[in-house]
């Protein structure tokens, strides 16, 4: 029987593209950050799926990589939201179309 690896990969690709669409189209900086989190989660799902259906799954590499990736994502979310709150305090807006003073 074939493994259902491709189902997990398709789901992960779909999640990644939903996150990408949100990050590229939404105007609110917080929702852009949420989109990035969704993309990171899709990557984690790929790590776990490949680890589960790989012949060398005794080595636990995929699990540990996913754990480290979750840690990095937590740090990224904390710093990103702190930056958004700091920007909001200065400009009273989280609208990305208005935060363009560094545009050349």
């Amino acid at each position, binding site marked *: 029987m074939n493994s259902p690896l491709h189902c997990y990969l398709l789901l992960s690709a779909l999640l990644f593209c939903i996150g990408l669409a949100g990050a590229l189209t939404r105007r609110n900086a917080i929702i852009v950050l*949420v989109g990035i989190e969704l993309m990171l989660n899709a990557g984690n799902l790929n790590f776990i799926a490949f680890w589960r259906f790989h012949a060398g799954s005794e080595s636990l590499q995929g699990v540990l990589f996913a754990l480290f990736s979750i840690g990095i994502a937590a740090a990224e979310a904390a710093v990103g939201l702190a930056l958004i709150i700091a920007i909001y305090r200065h400009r009273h807006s989280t609208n990305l179309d208005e935060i363009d003073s560094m545009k050349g």
Partner: protein
Amino acid sequence: MTIGFLVLATLTVAGALGAMFFRNLVHCALCLVPTFAGLAALFLQLNAEFVGFVQILVYVGAVAILIVFAILLTRGSEPPASAAVRHSAWWGLWVAVVAFVIMAGTILSSLIMSVAELAKPVPTIRRIGDQLMQDYVLPLEVIGLLLTAALIGAVVIAMQEEPKKNGS
């Protein structure tokens, strides 16, 4: 493909769509919770129990709450007066759809489709701990340092400035 996978995938994708495309930001943040919980259940289904519980603790417990706090602190709970999407929204959607078509085509045409079903791996917590303390001790220390730096950095960035420094 099992019924469980279908249910979890539907829940996850529906939550992700809601999180990305609702107008009210609080609804977006609440839609994240089923997405993260569904992903945690998928990890459990894939025999990665530890990662599944870490996902629940970190994402459902911390990141989702953090996002709700950020939305409330920035008055994002009021529905936006103007459009919620940017002027170039069609380009973003087009890029995402093209990316998905390319990825799905690659997955469906690759050798992955014919990989045989393998025996279930059994990663015990003890083995994960052993690995973390032996082969992965340097990455563990580095990520501890990174998390400390990120915590201090987040507090410093978000800290209220002195009123007299502001000048306004």
